[in-house]
């Protein structure tokens, strides 16, 4: 197994915490016909980071940078969960038992399954542990 296959490029966008900024990001991606699978916003005092998982990461990053946003790629993993009670626990306990810390996480509920996106402190180890214990990780190629 190649762990790199499961490392997904999340786009992190620096944004001031003020009206219209998310709309500006969404509009730019719409113009490029880029689909957003999932996103979350983390906020601090007066500013935040918008995190996006999209179908075409490279063109999305370029577009956002071109219109002046400060952007960067962040490595995350995505794992399918059962969309039923206990689905999140199955995943979280693998990481917990492996002493791998989740720095942040967000989820989306798709047509077939719920997907949990995770930013962890030791990404390769997390991939090995999770695949080893039968978790259904999404491959990066799904996001290209």
């Amino acid at each position, binding site marked *: 197994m190649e762990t790199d296959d499961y490392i997904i490029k999340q786009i992190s966008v620096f944004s001031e915490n003020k009206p219209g900024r998310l709309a500006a990001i969404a509009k730019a991606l719409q113009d490029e016909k880029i689909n957003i699978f999932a996103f979350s916003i983390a906020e601090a*005092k007066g*500013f935040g980071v918008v995190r996006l998982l999209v179908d075409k990461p490279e063109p999305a990053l370029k577009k956002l940078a071109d219109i002046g946003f400060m952007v960067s790629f962040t490595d995350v993993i995505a794992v399918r969960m059962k969309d039923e009670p206990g689905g999140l626990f199955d995943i979280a306990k693998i990481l917990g038992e492996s002493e791998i810390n989740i720095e942040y996480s967000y989820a989306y509920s798709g047509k077939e399954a719920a997907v949990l996106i995770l930013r962890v402190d030791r990404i390769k180890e997390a991939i090995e542990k999770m695949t080893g214990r039968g978790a259904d990780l999404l491959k990066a190629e799904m996001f290209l």
Partner: protein
Amino acid sequence: MFWDKEMETLGGRALEDLQVKRLRQTIRQAENVPFFKDLLKEKSVSAEDINKIQDVSRLPFTTKKDLQKGYPFGFMAVPKKEIVRIHTTSGTTGKPTVVGYTRNDLDNWSELIARNLTMVGLTDEDTFQNAVNYGLFTGGLGFHYGAEKVGMTVIPSGTGNTKRQIEMIDDFGVTAVHCTPSYAMHLAEVAEEMGTTLDTFKTGLFGAEPWSDNTRRTLEQKLGVTAFDSYGMSEMYGPGAAFECPERNGLHFWHDSFLIEIIDPETEEILGPGECGELVVTPLVKEAMPLIRYRTGDITCILDDECPCGRGPRIARITGRSDDMLVIRGINVFPSQIEHVLRTLPEVGDQFMVYVDRINHLDEMAIDIEIKKEFFSGELKDLERIQKKIIHALRDTLNLRTKVNLVEHESLPRFEGKAKRVVDRRGDVI
């Protein structure tokens, strides 16, 4: 009431003779400083050329920039072992201005403070809360020792912990307070919230930042005090170089200790009484750090009509600055200092904007900063780390808490001509 009636009311020929004698002595003292020695030689002027007080105009001016070049001890006219205290004040860029005091300097300074306190009617019967910063800022220790000299009961409360300050005022029967006018406004508000009317208060001494007659009325009404304006700067020991008497129509300068002039800040031409310009001060009895025709940057005029209290000419309350110095919560800040700090931080981009506001009567400085793209890791915690680093660096240099806003790229104004990176939104006065 007088602390030293003879000196406080000295005028005419007697004052001029004393000033000439002391000016000569000051020039001789200044010649111990290589900077002044060279400067006086260059201008071919020495103590012997001073025969009447108008001869001061033959002497060169000194500026804050000059002082800064002497950091740390380049302007000391005595060996370091004779210096018993050091205060520092903000410099125009990076390095602070260092002010040294001999034992005599400290005694003279306390004498002047004692004159001020006595002039406004305070005595050894009074209890005095000194609610200013006690560190390197001269207002703390300066007033402290002057008030002790008068024999007042002194409470060195410093700043902060406002509720405790108010409890002390009530519990200790405080009659007089010294603080910045903005802190006084804050005290008044917190006292109101606490439901106390500060009944023992009668006198408020306010300084270190400009304040209006409107503020005076508000403070007097809210605190139940008679409010007096105080003027000074570290280069003239600290506060207390000039002070309002009970007439409260200008501040009496202590002419036995300071020679004052008003000049046009552009042409350096000496202006007459009643004409507004930059205040230039030559301290007359300083030992550790004599200064010659020091340009204060403060805008005022000399009021030489007779004051019923019998003391000498006054200056009008300070109306502004001849340079871009800001006074924020009583602390002097030069925009160039802010720029200097930010330029030393690799994360900070080329653009920034400084905003000064007054929020709930307290000055707040906020700086909008674009960080450099290469320092954006994508992680929020890294951005927060950069934000904290900038706040700490500014606090270390300016002694001032600032709010730092990280803003998006290219969101700040770009300047083609002279950059205007500082916007003071406080209006002219408190």
